[in-house]
């Protein structure tokens, strides 16, 4: 399955789960800001993706919950610290942090949850599944 095929399926899933129009969904769309996802929607999306792609998505793997738990080593004065950034990279290896790193505010974390994040995650998941099957 090509990246474009994955995107099309992910987009269709988001149209169903979030009740948005197809043309609203682009690779760069943020789930909360652009597509209006709420906390329960994240569970719904994970659930639908599992069905759509016949994969298992362990809790916190695609959408980690409360990443920092208010740990002062990770966040200081509303900004994510260097240690926090490496924690973020470890927990969200599929996220594109390049823009975020320039201004790593705590509020900015929600913008890391994009359509692109889901597509990259699924891509890697399917590749590792194929490897395991081979």
């Amino acid at each position: 399955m090509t990246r474009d095929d994955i995107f099309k399926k992910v987009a269709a899933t988001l149209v169903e789960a979030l009740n948005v129009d197809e043309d609203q969904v682009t690779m760069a769309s943020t789930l909360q800001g652009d597509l209006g996802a709420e906390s329960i929607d994240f569970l719904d999306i994970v659930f639908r993706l599992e069905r759509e792609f016949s994969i298992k998505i362990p809790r916190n793997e695609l959408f980690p919950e409360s990443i920092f738990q208010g740990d002062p080593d990770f966040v200081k004065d509303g900004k994510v610290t260097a240690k926090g950034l490496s924690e973020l990279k470890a927990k969200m290896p599929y996220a594109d942090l390049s823009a975020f790193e320039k201004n790593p505010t705590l509020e900015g974390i929600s913008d890391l949850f994009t359509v692109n994040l889901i597509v990259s995650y699924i891509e890697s998941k399917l590749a590792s599944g194929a490897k395991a099957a081979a």
Partner: protein
Amino acid sequence: MRWIWIDRFVSFESGKSAMAVKNLSLAEDFFADHMPGYPVMPAPLILEGLAQTGGILVGDANNFTKNVVLAKIGKASFKRDALAGESLTYTTTLLQMSEVGGLVAGTVHVGDEPIGEAEIFFAHVGPEQLKELTGSDNFVFTGNLQKMLGLAKAAAKKPEASGAA
């Protein structure tokens, strides 16, 4: 508050399906106001009954060790009103089950006539999230639901007993 919107389970097959009935007596409180002179059951309460019938399937899948909340009703449609004096049959099947939650499809019948259907997503939530969503950390499997489970289990035993006879 009493919040059970089914009268009896008629069948219960763990991990697969559950069926329950709800009899609509004109004495039900909601008929007084909904609507004056035209007593019909409010559709959200029909959905609640359907969700209770199907939610127990999702809870049962993990032996009621996980908190299950009605997270989303993705689709729901009704063909006509449910009237006082009618008996509704809620039929639910578990479509998908995972760590995240469970998806249930349900239909509402009066006799053989389908009058509504819905697809309901139940989510598993941790204690923290439950508090955030509902303001309570003991919300889902209360005593009343445990009693419902008893009814469900009793219903589940019936086919075996008749099969043995």
